[in-house]
């Protein structure tokens, strides 16, 4: 694991913290699942159902989007919620990230 240097500039310094906080609360973060050739399709569907509480049909739509188009935007959330979902998906070893919209 690559070592991470301690940041000398703390988040928020030199910026308007309220603005930062507001940005984080806005649903401006996309939770994306990326395709890979190893995760089983049924497994991906199952994980979407468990993590998002979706019905099987909706989970399959997103799974097929990942499979056919290389990725699927699963949800658009605040920073905190997006992080939560990415953590959940990665606990199941899915290739998921959060990106700014």
């Amino acid at each position, binding site marked *: *694991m*690559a070592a*991470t*240097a301690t*940041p000398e*500039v*703390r*988040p928020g310094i030199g910026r308007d913290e309220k603005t930062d906080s507001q940005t984080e609360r806005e649903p401006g973060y996309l939770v994306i699942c*990326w395709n*890979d*050739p*190893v*995760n*089983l399709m*049924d*497994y991906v569907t*199952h994980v979407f159902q*468990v993590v998002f509480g979706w*019905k*099987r049909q909706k989970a399959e739509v997103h799974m097929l989007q990942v499979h056919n188009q290389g990725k699927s935007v699963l949800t658009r959330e605040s920073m905190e919620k997006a*992080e939560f979902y*990415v*953590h959940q998906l*990665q*606990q*199941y*070893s899915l290739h998921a*990230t*959060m*990106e*700014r919209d």
Partner: protein
Amino acid sequence: MKLLRTKRDKLVFEISLPEKRLLFEVLRLYPLITTAHHRLSKTARSAKQDENQRLLEESLTAQREVNRKNVRAMLGQTGHFETTASSLHLTLSRPEIEWLLQVLNDVRIGSWIALGSPDPEQGKPFVFDEKAVTHFRTMELAGAFQMVFLNALSGSQAT
């Protein structure tokens, strides 16, 4: 290995002794993926992002420790298994199947990474040598057990 019946919130599987040995062989390998393998974002690079990445790795490490404890408990006790006249029965709750799925997928993905992350559709074929065969076998074994559990879950729940 197959699902025999659902008993309240528990699922009862019939499993042969060789299958149990293979399942344990796969479980003993956990974990194979390093926490640094997972990235919070593909694009964002900032001090805050580094901190969030660190938190992600901490969270995954904590979850992994819980799974590792569960694996040790399953390997070390016979509570989940019941010997019958003709076979073994494995009884699991749904939460237990969830952590087993996480563990099995970690081993599957970890074996794939050990194979060099092959992706034939992208022109990166499997390269087989003696060591690769072992990883390939583990990857496929983990996947086979995953499918048994997934089929059992989807067949036993109202949709």
